[in-house]
């Protein structure tokens, strides 16, 4: 009877279940686990926050700082954040044993100093981001430390001065 052949299959196969956690878990080299944000590289630009499908990454102002928070409890391990990060600050790890009795363990934060407009004091962006922009592009630092409104005004004024309009253009 061919149905007895199942015994033959079973005997030949033996035990396939791993003795986890005593034995190493089976994870392939391509496995995507939780992410890590390197605070020394992060600019606080929020590109990762915009692309994150489940809102695991958030960027919120808190007092004088801007906080990038990663809540692994919401993470779906897609790794899109690492792909879009302009600073290459995010790495996808192979970690998946993330359970904890303490909710705080599931959150990690990168705190950024906020740069304020040197004229009117409006918060502009994280200081690290402005520094990176100044370094990467030929923007004069004088303009980079201004909020968009003051920047526009100063630009208009300087053009006005150049063409000699009275009052230095609209303001």
């Amino acid at each position, binding site marked *: 009877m061919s149905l007895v052949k199942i015994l033959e299959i079973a005997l030949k196969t033996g035990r396939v279940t791993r003795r986890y956690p005593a034995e190493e878990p089976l994870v392939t080299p391509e496995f995507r686990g939780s992410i890590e944000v390197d605070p020394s590289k992060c600019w606080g630009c929020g590109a990762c926050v915009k*692309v994150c499908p489940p809102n695991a990454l958030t960027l919120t102002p808190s007092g004088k700082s801007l906080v990038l928070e990663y809540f692994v409890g919401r993470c779906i391990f897609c790794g*899109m954040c690492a792909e879009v990060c302009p600073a290459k600050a995010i790495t996808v790890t192979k970690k998946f044993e993330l359970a904890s009795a303490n909710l705080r363990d599931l959150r990690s934060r990168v705190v950024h100093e906020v740069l304020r407009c040197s004229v009117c004091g409006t918060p502009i962006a994280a200081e690290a981001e402005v520094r990176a922009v100044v370094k990467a592009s030929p923007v004069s630092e004088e303009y980079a430390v201004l909020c968009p409104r003051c920047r526009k005004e100063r630009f208009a004024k300087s053009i006005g001065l150049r063409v000699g309009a009275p009052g230095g253009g609209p303001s």
Partner: protein
Amino acid sequence: MTEPVGKLIEELKNLGGKVEEVRGREIYLVASRDSLRSLAKALYSAGAYLKTCAGVDERPIQGVLSVYYIFGLDELGVDVILRVPVTEEDARVPTIVPEVPAADWCELEARDMIGVEITGRPVRRLVLPEDWPEGVYPLRKDFDYSTRPLRGFRSELPEEVGVPLGPYHPALHEPEYFELYVDGEKVVDVVYRGFHVHRGIEKLAESPRFTYKQVPFLAERICGICGFVHSSCYVMAVEKAAGIEVPERAEFIRSIVLEVERLHSHLLWLGVAAHLLGYDAGFMHAWRIREHTMVLAEYLTGSRKTYGINIIGGVRKDLNVDKLDKTLKTLATVREEFVKLAEVMLSVPQIRSRASGTGVLSRFEARALSVVGPVARASGLYRDVRKDYPYFAYREVSFKVPLYTEGDNLARLLVRVEEVLESIEIIKQLIDKLPGGPIAVESWDIPPYRRAVAAIEAPRGEDVHFIITGVGKPYRWRVRAPTYQNIPALRAMLRGAPLADAPLTIASIDPCFSCTDRVVVYDLKTGSRRTLRISGGVPPCPL
């Protein structure tokens, strides 16, 4: 357009249809309320299946509420989409159920979600809960995503209260609920009550926090088993609507991963079927073989499930020599072990005797209800999206579509067994022909208010996504999972059959159920009620 299509269009024009747009293999027609039924009838007699219908609030664009009826002409590989616009003040459309029985659910869903009254048929709430306020339609654009309407409680309770613990176990994801009316041991009627956990995914995708790029990850979470089908179908719909040309290599990679997904899904189902039949040795071995495909999926994509590699315009992960090599080795192992197991399983006398002749769905009923996938193919309908509307790389491969005419549980089992072997051959051919080149387009642009229908053959059958593009995100995204089309067929399968066959028959459509489902049994003679437990390890799924 080919001659038969042209002839059909002429006929539809004579019946009052107005051609609005022809895009690729999709023909959009506007119909009036009065011409809808005759148009639907003409399409149905021409051999079209109803893929689904969708209510769309188009007031912000054209000042109307529209109901879209998506018909597919399998033999011609053409979709005909009827749009019936109505004003908000006079939002009524006639039912097409007498002509096209498969429209039963989607008509009711459109009524619930955008508030178009369906005339000429008994109506009830399908998707919305009983205590949802009247006149509030969640898919209308003026209904904000974050609104939570105050729901009233029923003031009077019946004197006698039955307390069924379940079917809604608080920890499980996807309850489905069948009321089986029995006379002795014979099932005389079946009432299905579903949508207990409607997740509002279509509305969520319209909410401010979602963009085109994020929706594939949301779509992938519609189903815990065939998630890649949904993300593929979403990106395909967007790519079709926007006219984005996807690199060939990306199409091949998508097809390979789709077939790997089919392998794991069918092996999962075969295990569950064995378990339901009390053959747990078969269950264990089916799942052991399935594990090879799960590990392979992780190696190819980065994740065992919810692969996350689909993006608009291509894929995120490339294949290399190591991966292709590992794939071929895994396929060889799976094939060898599966053939042995299938032979043993099918020789177990209890399996054959319990599966054959039970849960019969006739070809006629299958056609009327427009059932899909293995359920259709086991009832003699030659339907397979991969053949009828070839997408991605399926034009490049040759494979057989298993066809049975018995329409019973055994036929559905055999279809899936053969499909496992076909899938393995398909992947081998795809690897053999895998072209080089990029795996994604560098940039894309999606113009607003373009429409497209995409369909993919999921392990459970045809999955349909209909999209109207918007600004930065879909304007309307309609998903029709295969189980939506197949559940109504259960009534035909269960009626007149012994109660003991019900658990297997329900499972035979491979519904996406929670791990434990329950059925309440009413005995018509004694009026008593007991619950029947079906334990089948099927993880959660669809809408």
